[in-house]
């Protein structure tokens, strides 16, 4: 059972290191987003916590639009095959990545 002890050690150490590394990444991301934020953001945009109503509305509209799109997509797929998954993971990764990217751009960059 030496191996079992080893494996328990690996688990404790491994999960500890994973959490440690992830927390350092968290810190890094906070620093990075702070230091590399766009300088010319308007004052009302620099206060993200108090999301203004317009933004919220826009967000809900986007959410609704996306929900409809997803519903339509699933409807279209359901006839074709039992799993409501796209043909290939790679293709779907791309599709969702792009869709996400477009949404993110809308949400982040082009908000009026």
């Amino acid at each position, binding site marked *: 059972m030496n*191996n*079992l002890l*080893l*494996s*328990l050690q*690996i*688990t404790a*150490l*491994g*999960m500890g*290191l*994973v*959490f440690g*590394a*992830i*927390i*350092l*990444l*968290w810190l*890094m*991301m*906070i620093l*990075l*987003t702070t230091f*590399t*934020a*766009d300088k010319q953001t308007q004052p009302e*945009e620099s206060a*993200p*916590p108090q*999301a203004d109503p317009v*933004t*919220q509305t826009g*967000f*809900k509209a986007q*959410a609704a639009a*996306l*929900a409809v799109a*997803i519903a339509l997509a699933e409807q279209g797929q359901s006839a074709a*095959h*039992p*799993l409501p*998954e796209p*043909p*290939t*993971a*790679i293709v*779907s*990764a*791309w599709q*969702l*990545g*792009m869709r*996400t*990217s477009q*949404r*993110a751009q809308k*949400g*982040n*960059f082009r908000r009026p």
Partner: protein
Amino acid sequence: MDLSSLLPELLKGFTHFTIGNAVMITAALVLIYLAVFKEIEPVLLMPIGFGCLLANIPLAGMTAVEGMMGVLYNAGIKTELFPLLIFVGVGAMIDFSPLLAQPRMVLLGAAGQFGIFGTLILAVLLGFPLNQAASIGVIGAIDGPTSIFVATKLAPELLAPIAVAAYSYMSLIPIIQPPLMKLLTTKKERLIKMDYAPKPISKTTLIFFPIVLTIVVGLLVPEATPLISMLMLGNLLKMSGVVDRLSKAAENEIINIATLFLGLAIGSTMNEAAFLNFDTGKIMALGLFAFVLDTVAGLLFGKLMCFISGGKINPLIGAAGISAFPMAGRLAAKTASDEDPDNFILMHAMGANTAGQLGSVIAGGILLSVVSKMLGL
């Protein structure tokens, strides 16, 4: 040449055909069936299945060192080139802005790796030596190239069953996760709506992120550098916006060719001796266990974050932290909107999902580092 010596020559294909070959060809047909008719990760399971078929046609010589499959294996699996090239393409398809907009989501990417270590312990209990147990555990990274990369280093003899388990269960996520989600969360929790008022993420941030991440992870976990750096290279090519030619090549030619060759080469290791033993069955069972454990750990951590945040975090996004990009993220969002069509948590789930992708690679590197050290490799 007399005819008595001719008949064995004519029938050599059949006389050398073993029960084992028949079983493995059946396995190949099952993989191809799942790929074609169930559309389970077809870009990988179809080449793997076809490679397995070729490895079990006697005397065809394709898996010999100088055969085509042997050439591909030595060129791209032994050198680890194919999984790394696939990661360049995957990196060019990932958008980290949902994660950067809500950095705390990154914590969920750590919780979703518990399955790796839990499965390692169970594999050791089932009698696997440590290097094999660790390779089996890394199925819990829920990320194909990471699993293949680590298994190639620690236990190449188990590469085929590990790859098959990783990719098969990856596509079964829409079947594996939802029951666990319902079991481990209350309806009230699933109904939690989350504000999405993200910090605006500048283009500069998106460009710096892959570079800084490569350096930070590289210094923290040198063993994870090949995987994380190729993922980040792809992401940088894409986000920089100045090398369209290269990012298109990464997303298309490079990933497609590497995927086809990787699948064939891995499938061609599925010969009787390597695959037809009790271990393969154990590995498939352990793989499923890894997927379940990852999901459970992710959901429980999600509930913890929900509790700490005073009920502001929907624990479903914890299930997206296991990696399996982007299926797991989408599935978490879908489960929430199934409960309440007005509940939209896709951006949060995608943040957790990309965090899971990073966490998987880091956990893979840590596992490689710790186990190599312990085994004195």
